[in-house]
């Protein structure tokens, strides 16, 4: 179904069409409410279900892509309006979203907003991380999955988590030489410390294990070395990366002295987990809490995925990193709860049946959360990762800010993260603090002797994505006249 550009209201709007958003939209629409699903890419699916570009449609899609396509078809059949290529640049009081895009209305008001905005990859600022050829593992995966492009020929993967294995296997199958995979943690050792927990967490995770084993098989056949307890500490090269320094890491991810070696390569893919994209929730003023195992600050939610703000839900990685399957369950719960909320208001509702469905999803939710907890325990980088930056290592690429600059700002008296931002310009560039925010917060925490939870995060300001000036349209002309009073400034 196509949305009309003139629409300004809907019952439920879902922001983000990855596993969480698609599931939320489907559940809400099947429960009988009007749903609009918005995504800023050309095709729904998000990173998890990322589809090949339209030009490659004849290629054999992999299992996630098939699953995503199926879900998308169900969503369309359920009557959900899908708006692609639409950027939600702001969220405002009264459940108002402001958008721009070739097919999107300039604003949309909804009874319920479900935020399913996904996550960014966490980056680490080690010397040389800004060299061409150094990229996130997710970027390499996007090139591979969507564009069928190899990022390089001789590739080192470093970081943590099974995504490294999946992408490495894809790179090998596409013809690249994977020089080595460095896993910073020692997952097997950690898992064996609490074998019963491991078994409990892995119960019912057959798909995940199968995917992992398949990747392992490809990598073993290709003879790709896999080191646990190792990490990259620097990248070197003039015009682009030529080699990387690696070292053995202790349990806190601090390099063990005298273990440093070098590896020659033309590409370094880094994967340190994910940071939830919480901009819209924060712009609306949803209270957040610091949960490092979920990727950082996340909106506080209840069992129905409601934030502390009325009518604002948050699901999937954007509300706490937990992966595709957890995102799907959270999405379904939020979609159902949103439908119940809309129906309760219209008073012809059969919300009890909907709420029962939510109850039936609880065991699956518990299972996935248990797995997520187990997974986070194995694959969350230690504090040593934030200590790799040297005083002159750039941590804010847009404005070229270094830890030395932050040190100087703190010395002058900048005692909050926002004061550091103001004084150094860190976070004021095109990434709007997405990349450098956690890096800067870590430096400020070190400099001021406070915890990350105390340091907090950059204040979010609209627009939450760089937005062409000409694309901004008034939310409501009459409303604008009421709130803004000309002549207040007489001179």
């Amino acid at each position, binding site marked *: 179904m196509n949305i009309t550009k003139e629409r300004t209201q809907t019952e439920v709007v879902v922001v983000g069409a990855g596993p969480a958003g698609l599931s939320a939209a489907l559940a809400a629409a099947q429960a009988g409410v009007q749903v609009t699903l918005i995504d800023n890419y050309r095709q729904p699916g998000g990173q998890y279900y990322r589809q090949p570009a339209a030009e490659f449609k004849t290629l054999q899609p992999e299992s996630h892509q098939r699953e995503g396509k199926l879900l998308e078809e169900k969503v369309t059949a359920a009557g959900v309006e899908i708006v692609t290529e639409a950027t939600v640049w702001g969220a405002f009081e009264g459940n108002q979203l402001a958008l721009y895009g070739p097919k999107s209305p300039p604003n949309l008001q909804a009874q319920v907003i479900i935020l399913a905005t996904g996550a960014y990859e966490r980056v680490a600022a080690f010397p040389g991380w800004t060299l061409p050829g150094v990229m996130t593992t997710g970027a390499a995966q996007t090139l591979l999955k969507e564009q069928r492009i190899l990022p390089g020929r001789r590739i080192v993967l470093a970081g943590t988590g099974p995504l490294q294995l999946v992408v490495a296997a894809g790179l090998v199958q596409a013809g690249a030489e994977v020089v080595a995979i460095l896993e910073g943690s020692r997952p097997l050792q950690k898992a064996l410390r609490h074998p019963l927990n491991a078994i409990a967490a892995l119960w019912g995770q057959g798909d995940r294990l199968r995917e992992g084993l398949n990747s392992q098989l490809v990598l073993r056949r290709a003879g790709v070395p896999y080191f646990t307890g190792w990490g990259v500490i620097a990248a070197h090269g003039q015009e682009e990366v030529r080699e990387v320094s690696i070292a053995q890491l202790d349990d806190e991810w601090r390099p063990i002295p005298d273990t440093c070696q070098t590896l020659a390569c033309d590409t370094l893919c880094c994967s340190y987990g994910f940071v939830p994209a919480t901009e819209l929730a924060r712009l609306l003023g949803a209270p957040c809490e610091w949960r490092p195992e979920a990727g950082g600050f996340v909106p506080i939610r209840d069992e129905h995925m409601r934030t502390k703000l009325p009518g604002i839900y948050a699901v999937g990685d954007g509300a706490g990193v937990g992966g595709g399957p957890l995102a799907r369950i959270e999405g379904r719960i939020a979609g159902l709860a949103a439908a119940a909320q809309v129906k309760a208001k219209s008073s012809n509702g059969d919300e009890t049946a909907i709420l029962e469905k939510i109850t039936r999803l609880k065991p699956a939710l518990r299972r996935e959360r248990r797995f997520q907890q187990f997974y986070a325990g194995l694959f969350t980088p230690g504090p040593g990762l934030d200590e790799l930056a040297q005083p002159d290592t750039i941590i804010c690429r847009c404005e070229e800010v270094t830890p030395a600059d932050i040190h100087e700002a703190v010395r002058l008296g900048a005692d909050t993260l926002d004061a550091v931002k103001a*004084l150094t310009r860190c976070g004021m560039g095109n990434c709007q603090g997405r990349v450098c925010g956690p890096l800067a917060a870590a430096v400020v925490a070190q400099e001021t002797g406070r915890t990350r939870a105390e340091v907090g995060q950059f204040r979010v300001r609209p*627009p939450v994505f760089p937005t062409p000036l000409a694309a901004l349209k008034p939310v409501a002309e009459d*409303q604008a006249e009421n709130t803004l009073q000309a002549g207040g400034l007489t001179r």
Partner: protein
Amino acid sequence: MTNSLKMEAPVVIVGGGIVGGATAYYLARRGIKPLVLEKSTIGVEASARSAGGVRAQCRDRLERILAMASIKLWEGLEAKLDFDMEYVQGGNIRLATNEERMAGLAAEAEEELADGLLVEVWDRDELQRRAPYLSDMFIGAKYCATDGVANPILSTWAFAVAARRAGATLLTHTEALDVVVQEGQVTSVLARGPEGELTIETPLLIHAGGAYSPQLGQALGLHLPVEPARNFIGVSQRVRPFFTEFVSSHDMHIYFRPARAGHIHVGGVLVTNDTFDKNVPAEGVTHLSNITLMVPALRNANFLRAWAGTLAMTPDRLPIIGPVEGLGGYLLATGFSGHGFCLGPIVGKLLSELVVDGEPSMPLDELNLSRFA
């Protein structure tokens, strides 16, 4: 307040914005080491959130004289304070889209020239020649070459840092709560900081609290006619520099100016009255896109963020500066109504003269609180 910490200071300044910072700096330079109380941190309230305009044109006469003197100070500030404030005298253009506006600007030019402020009145052709980046919706403008801009954040910090270096003490996250007056004379200020309550014995309180001033005024039994209002600014991504002026149109309710790194700051000549809310409303952001009607080349430039600040508005939109009758040891410097950034240095200097010499080198009487009596 049995547990409160006791301190002493020759002068307590409430407010660490550009006015409080400049006052602290000039006082410290004259040998009086003040204590500055800032309720949040340096450079996060109105001074640092402003557009950074440093202009003398298009002001009320009382402000014009002060602004001209302040700009004389601004010209030497970076060297004096040893701080890069990104100060540039890039000129100021006030635009007109209609004859009525143009006539008003021309009349104002005569007053300004009489006061010794060099301004030019441009017709349509001259405007097109001097500012070819503007669309043809404007029929003329008034221009002042000595006006300019500074980075509001760095400038606020510059005074705070220089004041501290000169001997002032800055207490951030410390809010003045109450003032003790004995026999018509201020004797101490009560404040709350991260370590708890403070009692600061002082013979002189300088109140530069911006929009937050009335509350402490109330503690003194004063009604300060200062009301909060929200104004907002957006900033574009970096573009290749193509103009230097601070440009404004009160017909389009838009002003804009370039920043050194290539970003363009765009503000609304609009306020929301009676609010301390610093969230930018959607219609605030979208209003700023009107700049694309004025500068068509910016249509495809990206907006990166918008922020709001709280102005301290007075009924006549002029600041309240100087002593209050019947209350010894108390000086006001507040209610700048959105015009304070440029005036900060001169007001700080004049207040320091008032304290040290007993009389400022320029008269401030007409800006006293008593004008509202």
